[in-house]
């Protein structure tokens, strides 16, 4: 590191210090994850060279791991922006230390959602054809538009509340960091007019981002629901996917929070109450997710429509039963048992529930994509889909690259919003003095 150490004392040094210093374990993790990413790059070049024949895909299972990951990552992206926007609008004070960590997940994970679609293309070199020859009746094009808008909006929504903190770092650093922060802080000096504008802009974005976020996962579900394939062609898919997205999103925030809290020793800011409150939200989503899953499956089972029931049986009793029932355990039984109990809704408890939900929601995406394709209407010969080493390597690479980028973010920007904490303390102090004055008057 060059001379970018703090000038002068800072009350929030606990938050800024990890940003400006790089420890040994950080380097070790970077190298480990970097190796995984490099391996994935090799696998990707391999796939580009030899074609998608190097995957485990076949006819009729034309979509597999990549599309599962696409839906999963886009789902996780609902972590940040949506949750943080809702909490901001309802003025939940406890949101302050967690919003940024959530928003970063959104922006970073969106790249991997889009990236997985590119990995899935037979001709990635022609991806631009989607722009040059767009066909607006294709739900994939709706996807591109809504995800593009979402990426722009959520990046902006992440950046706006960062400005005062960037300015704070600008004033504390020298060298390349100082130049970097100067450029990004866009002349922020903290005048009342700037504050007024900033808060207004954040308020507008928080509202604008909600319908965009809802539209994104609705449209992702429509990629499946707009076809007439059994158990894809379902009106419930829009809201079902949105609920699943928020569900896996909250789980992702809790995991990220727990790791950042431990690694950067931020126990003072990320307290058990945050885990408790998010745990309660996760519990609510567990119930909602179960309600949707139950409604979807009961309708199909009761109808006994031959083509649909084929997929249903494959999912519940056939070759996909292990995925399905593991999903039920990890998305319902485990989180419900842990989170419904006050004594287990601790930091550790919510983290265990979140890891379980993350695994379960990935399985849910898989159990939606593959069984329908494995049971086509036409009586053609079908094949079991087993992902190849290329697909598994690229999946590992996506997760590793995501963690790596997240780590990189924590070394450039504070992962807890300092000015929002200051604001909270100031208003608490104002409350106290008001109370004292009142007491004196009485």
């Amino acid at each position: 590191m060059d001379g970018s150490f703090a000038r002068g004392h800072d009350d929030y040094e606990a938050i800024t210090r990890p940003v400006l210093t790089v420890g040994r374990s950080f380097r070790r993790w970077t190298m480990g994850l970097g190796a995984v990413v490099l391996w994935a790059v090799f696998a990707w070049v391999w796939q580009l060279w030899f074609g998608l024949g190097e995957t485990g895909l076949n006819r009729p299972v034309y979509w597999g791991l990549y599309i599962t990951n696409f839906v999963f990552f886009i789902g996780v992206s609902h972590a940040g922006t949506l949750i943080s926007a809702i909490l901001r609008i309802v003025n939940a004070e406890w949101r302050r230390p967690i919003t940024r960590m959530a928003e970063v997940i959104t922006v970073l994970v969106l790249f991997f959602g889009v990236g997985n679609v590119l990995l899935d293309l037979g001709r990635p070199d022609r991806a631009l054809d989607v722009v040059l020859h767009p066909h607006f009746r294709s739900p994939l094009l709706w996807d591109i538009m809504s995800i593009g808008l979402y990426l722009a909006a959520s990046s902006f929504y992440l950046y706006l509340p960062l400005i005062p903190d960037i300015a704070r770092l600008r004033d504390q650093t020298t060298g390349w960091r100082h130049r970097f922060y100067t450029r990004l802080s866009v002349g922020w000096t903290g005048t009342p007019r700037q504050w007024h504008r900033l808060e207004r802009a954040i308020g507008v974005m928080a509202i604008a981002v909600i319908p965009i976020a809802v539209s994104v996962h609705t449209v992702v579900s429509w990629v499946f629901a707009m076809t007439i394939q059994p158990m894809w062609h379902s009106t419930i898919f829009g809201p079902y996917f949105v609920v699943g997205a928020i569900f896996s999103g909250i789980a992702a925030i809790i995991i990220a929070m727990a790791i950042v809290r431990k690694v950067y020793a931020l126990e003072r800011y990320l307290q058990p109450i945050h885990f408790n409150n998010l745990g309660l939200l996760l519990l609510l989503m567990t119930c909602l997710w179960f309600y949707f899953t139950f409604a979807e499956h009961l309708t199909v089972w009761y109808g006994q429509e031959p083509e649909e029931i084929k997929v249903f049986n494959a999912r519940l009793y056939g070759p996909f039963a292990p995925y399905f029932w593991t999903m039920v355990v990890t998305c319902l039984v485990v989180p419900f048992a842990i989170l419904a109990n006050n004594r287990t809704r601790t930091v550790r408890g919510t983290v265990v529930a979140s890891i379980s939900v993350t695994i379960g929601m990935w399985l849910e995406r898989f159990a939606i994509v593959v069984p329908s394709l494995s049971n086509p209407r036409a009586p053609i010969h079908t094949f079991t889909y087993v992902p190849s080493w290329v697909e598994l390597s690229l999946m590992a690479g996506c997760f590793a690259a995501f963690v790596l980028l997240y780590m990189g973010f924590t070394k450039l920007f504070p992962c807890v919003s300092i000015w929002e904490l200051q604001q909270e303390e100031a208003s608490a102090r104002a409350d106290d003095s008001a109370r004292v004055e009142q007491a004196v008057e009485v």
Partner: protein
Amino acid sequence: MARWGLVIDLDRCTACQACVVACKHENNVPFSTPAASNSGRLLTWIQLVAVETRSHGPATPMPLMCQQCDRPPCTDVCPTSATYLNAEGIVAQIYARCIGCRYCTNACPYSVKLFNWQTPAWPEPMTALRNPDVSVRPKGVVEKCTFCHHRLMRAREQARAEGRDLANEDYVPACVQTCPAEAMVFGDLDDPHSEASAWAESPRAFRWMEELGTRPKVVYLREGE
């Protein structure tokens, strides 16, 4: 404008698969290995599948190719219009525009759209025997039966050169031409005098999965009970 259609009499079909072979050669569909076939990578524009066409009795082997729907579920979902319904009712593929997302293969209820998993290859002596009228598809794009569209283009040019209108018998796909049992008839379904439209009027005629609203232009004639 003609509305090209294919009628297949399952009572005459002997399931000899001559149409399958003729199609493969006509359209430069690459050979496959048993290993590729066993992992679901077989490319074939026509395939015999067992379909229960009668209320009782065993399933019938039925030649299955692109059903050339009038309302194709595959064309709507294509993000680049690389597959579309052309003016004569043929569901066309633009190989050079296809990005290989395989959305159309998944949207097709007949599972007749195929993906090029790798660069097609022929054993050396066969390379010279490829059909010069049909482009060889690169890896990574989707393909399927085109009703031998290149034959339509050739027939139309021939008719124009001879200064006459295109007649029904000028244009016949390779599978129909080959069928030794004469179980297939091809022609303009809108022309009341064509043999195809006469066959399609048969009380035995059915369009597969027509309950989905796809309106296929491949018509099958059920076997007599």
